[in-house]
């Protein structure tokens, strides 16, 4: 049973192939080349190296966001296209829930922070893979206020927001913990693994009903709302 994982929600991203939840291969790049140029070539190389035909895939899992709007759409469009053409199920996963899954063996709270720029983040708290609150778009100050109500346990910050705002977070959250930078990012392997699990639970979608998770209206819509 083959599961493919795709993540293009931040500058870093890539693809992973699992067979029965064993990692066959994973390709992650953190380079300036756009996802549009590198995603399919990476995927082609991965399947070639693994000697697996795309027709053999049982499920494709794709990160639907939150993250870079353009990046997300490239990954989601690619996942949709693969599944539409192959007649295979598609699983949409938020970057936040995959982080929760990837770091579920941490005993305290895990808080993935996806950088939304200018000290704003998309975030959600998890304990052993279970979400503690709803996914949220807000300021770093909101996250810090939330953390101060959990002063008696360790809080692991992961994701590009955790990397970019680590100095500020270390100061404000005394019980904060940070993994090494290279281990703080989303793994396509974790996307594929959680995709496999959703598939086995029958929780799948298709090219029509899996869509991006922006968690934020566009500037134009927000301005329009203000005016009316």
């Amino acid at each position, binding site marked *: 049973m083959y599961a493919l994982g795709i993540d293009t929600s931040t500058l870093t991203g890539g693809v992973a192939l699992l067979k029965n939840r064993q990692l066959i291969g994973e390709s992650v790049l953190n380079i300036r080349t756009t996802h549009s140029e590198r995603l399919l070539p990476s995927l082609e190389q991965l399947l070639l190296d693994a000697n697996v035909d795309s027709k053999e895939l049982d499920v494709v899992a794709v990160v639907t966001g939150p993250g870079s709007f353009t990046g997300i759409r490239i990954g989601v469009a690619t996942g949709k296209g693969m599944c*539409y053409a192959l007649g295979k199920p598609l699983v949409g996963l938020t970057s936040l829930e995959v982080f929760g899954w990837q770091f579920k063996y941490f005993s305290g709270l895990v808080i993935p922070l996806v950088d939304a720029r200018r000290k704003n983040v998309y975030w959600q708290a998890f304990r052993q893979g279970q979400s503690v609150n709803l996914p949220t778009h807000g300021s770093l100050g909101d996250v810090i206020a939330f953390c101060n109500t959990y002063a008696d346990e360790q809080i692991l910050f992961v994701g590009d927001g955790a990397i970019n705002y680590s100095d500020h977070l270390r100061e404000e959250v005394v019980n904060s913990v940070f993994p090494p930078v290279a281990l703080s990012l989303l793994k396509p392997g974790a996307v594929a693994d959680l995709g496999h699990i959703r598939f086995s639970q029958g929780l799948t979608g298709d*090219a029509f009903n899996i*869509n*991006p998770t922006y968690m934020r209206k566009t500037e134009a819509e927000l301005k329009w709302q203000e005016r009316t």
Partner: protein
Amino acid sequence: MKSGLTLGIETSCDETAAAIVKDGTEVISNVVLSQIDIHQKYGGVVPEIASRHHIEAIFPVINEALDKANVSLEDIEVIAVAYGPGLVGSLLVGVAAAKSLAFATQKPIVGVNHIEGHIYANFLDGQSVTPPLVCLTVSGGHTDLLLIPRLGEYEIIGRTRDDAAGEAFDKVARVLGLPYPGGPQIEKLALEGNKGAIHFPRGLQEHGNFDFSFSGLKTAALNYLNQAKQKDEMVDLPDFAASFQWAIIDILTEKLMAAAEKYGVNQVVLSGGVAANSTFRNYVQKCVDERGLELLYPPVHFCTDNAAMIASAGYFRYNAGYRSDYSLNAVANLRLGDK
């Protein structure tokens, strides 16, 4: 699979479109989902909103195009997608969708220049297009004179060095207080005017030069209006509009006819928004008739953005040996002739 069937995909602005075209000419299905109502309240296309609608609509639209054509993805011989020019976020949705379909089905994919697509709108609906031909694309963004020596190939023989012809129309119309787009407004005004009333300069008139320049003409027209205003003189608007429009039509047509003669073609093709100007069309028709040539312009319903024209252009490029690879990217300011 030698079915001659092309799946065309177009998402360069605010239309999500997919079409199935056979042999580059026969439109089997043509689905266009317009977002125009969504963007209206913002006074123009909002790129991020357009992209968000494209990603939700693209597979339903592709599915509908296949359904209506009563073919499956397996029957398709080649996939064609517009990769520029346009809104980069919008283009990326179509490009990513097309590439993943091509990869999963192991079909060839061809990236198409959206403007080239507009030229191939002439191939739809049973028009018989027989290269070599020259094509003049005139719109708000383009004034390109192309030689199509054979199907799937093109060579730029002339382009504007400054403003596009449609841009000159729009700018002068704005100064006259006419609504956008200015071309149709000026055409209407010009109907009652005398095209010989005012002589406006034509740029780059030397023989054998196929490039265009409209900034001198535009400046002269604006100066004319300014001077009249300063001297408190009335401008005969119909005469002004007719003379200004004539200067553009005259230079466009002259170069088009000179190119047709130089390259020994039998057909002359017009495309782009300005091709809808009937004064222009009629004059070109008259010149073409005098020379025993044939004039083609796209059927009205294929003048606006659609995927059938992308499929047609892609099919002929594919037959001419062109292929794109999986690193195909969207290019917002793609020009004709760019790789």
